[in-house]
């Protein structure tokens, strides 16, 4: 076995919610028996952006907010890979929010783990887009699940909590299955408290409402999902669980029309296309 990189001590504080995310991701990848060399973990900037250093896979540390476009480039170039993007609420909801909207719209087969701690931890405590307005600032907080529900392309929307590891394991496993089975973009927001700048374990533990615990809840009904998350919020809670899902068709499947196109594995020698290129050039002949 060739030695590549060794796991190092994480930069996370003791008790950080991100440990739970890493554990659930590793559990999911292991459970599904996905080979490490066929997995790529891309993470953005911030505390969450070091996740890839402690997962046995190909890892990439993306620019701030740009993890989704990079992950899309990977997935479209080699659809056989299991692609996991990760980042914080600043990365995904602030600087990268535009890309999130377009990723819902495109629905590529990528898992996206957004670790929401409602604070900028690495830069020591500034407001994030999910910060509560009453506590911190003049702006309303942003709900990524509601955003996803509003976009017709979305196919998998879930919210977990680092303080509820059993549920988180199930959600990340379901997300991996969704993305790998060609249904598309699996979005999992994880309430992942920052113990140093916004320790919300106890507060969130009292707020979370697992929608899947209600046998009447139909996670395939987009309108019901939208209504329920707002009912929960109006009552002071936070909706969690697999909130919405449909049997969508992933972007790469639609683009390649079922064929196993893989730009990464195309021959690069001109010889393999010589007649083809000659014919194309002839179209310009005068």
């Amino acid at each position: 076995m060739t030695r590549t990189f060794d796991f190092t001590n994480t930069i996370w504080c003791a008790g950080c919610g991100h440990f739970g995310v890493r554990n659930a991701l590793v559990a999911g990848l292991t459970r599904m028996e996905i080979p490490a060399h066929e997995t790529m973990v891309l993470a953005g900037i911030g505390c969450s952006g070091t996740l890839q250093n402690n997962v046995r896979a190909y890892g990439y540390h993306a620019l701030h907010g740009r993890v989704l476009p990079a992950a899309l480039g990977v997935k479209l170039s080699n659809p056989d890979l299991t692609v996991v993007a990760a980042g914080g609420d600043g990365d995904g909801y602030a600087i990268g929010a535009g890309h999130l909207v377009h990723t819902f719209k495109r629905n590529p087969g990528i898992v996206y783990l957004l670790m929401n701690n409602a604070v900028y931890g690495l830069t020591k405590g500034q407001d994030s887009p999910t910060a509560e307005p009453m506590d911190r600032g003049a702006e309303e907080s942003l709900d990524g699940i509601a955003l996803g529900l509003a976009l017709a392309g979305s196919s998998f929307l879930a919210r977990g909590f680092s303080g509820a590891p059993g549920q988180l394991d199930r959600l990340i496993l379901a997300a991996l299955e969704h993305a790998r089975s060609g249904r598309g973009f699996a979005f999992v927001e994880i309430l992942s408290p920052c113990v140093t700048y916004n320790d919300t374990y106890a507060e969130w533990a009292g707020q979370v409402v697992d929608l899947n615990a209600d046998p009447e809840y139909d996670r395939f009904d987009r309108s019901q999902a939208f209504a329920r998350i707002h009912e929960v919020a109006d009552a002071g809670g936070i909706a969690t669980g697999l909130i919405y899902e449909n049997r969508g068709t992933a972007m790469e499947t639609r683009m390649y029309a079922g064929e196993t196109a893989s730009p990464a594995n195309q021959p690069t020698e001109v010889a393999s296309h010589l007649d083809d290129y000659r014919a194309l050039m002839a179209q310009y002949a005068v």
Partner: protein
Amino acid sequence: MSAPKLMLDFNAMVAGQGGDGSLTVISILTELLARRGYHLFMSRNVASRIKGGLAAAMLRGSVVRRGCRGDHYDLLVAFDQEAIDRSGSEVADGGVVIYDASDGPLDRSALAETVRVFEVPFGRFAVRDLSRDLFKNSLSFGVISRLLGLEQDEAEACLRHTLSRLPERLIALNLTAFQRGLDFADEIGLHRGAGAWQVDKVEREPQILITGNDALAFGFMAAGGRFYAGYPITPATEILEFLQKHLPARGGVALQAEDELAAVNMALGAAMTGTRSMVGSSSPGYSLMQEGIVHAGSAEIPLVIVDSQRAGPSTGMPTKPEQSDIDMMIYGGNGEFPRIVLAPGGPRDCFELSALATNLAQRLQCPIIIALDQAIAQDSRTVAFFDLEELEADPGARLSADDLRARNTYGRYEVTDDGVSPWAVPGTPGGMNLITGNERNAWGLVSTDPKVRKTMADKRMRKVESIQHELPDGRRFGTAGADVGVLGIGMQLGVMSEAVERLADQGIAVEGLQPRTLWPVHGETLDFIASHSRVIVVEQNQEGQLRRLLMAAGADGAKLESARKYDGVPFRPAELVDQIIRGAGLTDNEPAMGSVA
């Protein structure tokens, strides 16, 4: 009547409001001149709007290959007075104006005395006889065909060929319009055989007529390029369009991103899988992409980036050429990282240098930048067929599963003599590694250790040093050993080479150089300057960025004269002849207009 003049270098402009169909008349003339074996150069001049605004198409047909517009137009077809007001002064002595008099008679104050004018209410005729304004193009071609002394068969064949995509019913109506044009020519005494000009018939090898943007996209694809991302922007959009049309059928992807930031990051993602990847944009879009370009330099990801430069600053003049991003391409972005900038001077260069860039990116794992300008990007011209057989795909230092098994260790950023770290792409068993734009150790783990930092920074920069001697040399022309030199990149090549040729005809020896490697500054470029006593640096920008670059690279600034233009209009050969004569002090001691020496 005097014998018709044989036009061996014919310059025509068709101008009107956008949507008038100026391109149609130029396309018909193109077909004619191509049949006669002429070399072609085509250019457009449009406003940044969908319809309306003055739009002009220009065609130069010549028996000698030319790479720019001529000094004057022999023929101006003007669909309105605005076209005359703007371009009338560019009509040659003894030239011809065909004017659409539908809205009233011509005010010819902008035209020289010797210019002949034919006023024809094309638009009115077209609407009256054929119920559609657009038929005025075929109508006007009737008159043009008589001016050029064409037989009706050949003229109709050219018309048919140009319109071949239209339904037969519309082609027939256009032929009727053309016949109506001939009838009108008879009415004004422009009978068969009475034309002022004639076009030669010359033999030449088959050629292709192509823009720089298309040639560049083709070169990328032919070198195995299979992923492109872009955001629509003038004048780079055609690269995206070409690749959207041609890559999918060849197992590739061309994506229209939500913005330039997304485009460059998509390409970074694709490149990490080993897919040969490129992004393209124009100046303001390139400026948005810089964060990603720096990242490719730091994280050592192979990426080709095209800047199809337009006039700046900011949104500037979207449809006008400039070479004012030289500094941005060479110095732009935070921190220091290896990069190479190549500068094509025509479609062949575009094809060859984009293929080279695609290979260099794989080999060096760093950003390879291609500097286009609007003129090189969008003007089309005839060139010899590209040499496909010559192309090779350099895989770079890629590790297979077998390679990995033969090693004890593999770190993504292993320190090597040439600075290039062999790499394994995702999907390769045993090659799991970490890619980051942060400073890191050989394993890809973040490090701020001073020794590691210096080792890694030095390693990255060694990549350019290791390749320097292999970078493409420039194109030399004119009189070898002349005292005076002229130097410029991109769009300046065509103008410089014609100016140098004319100076030689006047007995003035000048040697020219078009560097094709802009960064790092090629040794040949500095040698060229050293071996001439004066060198005029020709560039399309305000500050003389190219001249400044050469001086920073060690060229003697006292030798470097500057010929600059930044009004959105390319140099004409005669203007440059004048600047070279004055700038180099060949007739007097007056400095060149833009001299900063």
